């Protein structure tokens, strides 16, 4: 538990420390591209990954519906509601 607490806090602190500053300078303005890459990777992993393998299940339908809502400039609450509703519906039907 101590290792977990120290490790997870240490990783967060490392990023905003001088080490993170060096990375920030090295990447320059490109550091602003990091969130685009990391969040895109997170989205697809959260959508298609299940226990170490890629699967296509109800989540994909829900997230796709949410993405359409984002594209149509829907407010965030609607995006979440659509994604959850579609996922729950597809899951109930399959």
């Amino acid at each position, binding site marked *: *538990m101590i*290792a*977990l*607490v120290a*490790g*997870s*806090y240490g*990783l*967060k*602190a*490392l*990023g*905003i*420390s001088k080490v*993170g*500053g060096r*990375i*920030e300078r090295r990447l320059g303005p*490109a*550091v*602003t*591209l*990091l*969130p*685009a*890459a*990391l*969040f*895109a*990777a*997170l*989205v*697809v*992993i*959260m*959508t*298609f990954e299940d226990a*170490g*393998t*890629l699967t296509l299940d*109800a*989540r994909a339908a*829900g*997230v796709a519906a*949410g*993405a359409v*809502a*984002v594209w149509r400039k829907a407010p*965030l*609450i609607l*995006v*979440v509601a659509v*994604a*959850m*509703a*579609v*996922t*729950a*519906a597809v*899951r109930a039907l399959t």
Partner: protein
Amino acid sequence: MKARFGTIPWIAGLIGRLGSSDGSRPYLRDCVIVSLAVAPTGVTFGVVADAAGFDLARIVVMSALVFTGASQFAAVGVINDGGSGGAAVGSALLLAARNALYGPVMRRSLPASVPARLGAAQFVIDETTAISTARTNRRDAAGAFWFSGIILWLVWNACSVAGALLGAVLGTPETWGLDAAFPAILVALLAPHLRTAAGRIAALAAAAVALGVVPVTGAGVPILVSIVALAPALWVRTRRTEPPAAGGTSDDTPDAAP
């Protein structure tokens, strides 16, 4: 632990920031909506940790001090499956490693003083980084970071305790489609990053790389590996030209379209 790192300066800084904010806070709604998704997830964590044999004290300590949902679920899951403490910590820290990658971006929105930074560090997670970097103006980005960090920390802790006490009376959140809520939120908060060609290429290539390496790596690793996607994005940005076709970058990785 945090008191030693100077709780008072960063709380004072936060209050000062809230007090000085004269305009609207467009990120408030984002914080509330993300909290609505975090709350049931926190309850689920409490239920799962309780079922895995964690006592209330350890659940409280974990949610308060680890405060990274994916890592907490991983650690509890490994223990529940009969894994060793070392394996639990290893997989949890691999998932937490991406928080270190958020640091270089978040630094610009954080205060310069060391005690304030040590306080801020605890809140550098997926959700706060997403809410904060969706803001273009630096003051909003800082406000969004602190606001979402503190709100989500409170919600996460209260709800994981509630889950531990309530036990499994609530049913599985998958029934309500909660597992699609977080990727959908991230899609929404990713959208502002896709306004530039370089941002679109970084996102597309990172998604392709992450999916491509899933079968050959453990949990958490695909996210870390995905930063190689910065290379093509940087190349495009340096050339300062529009990409010939956005889809062209993923042709060599068919996994991008599962």
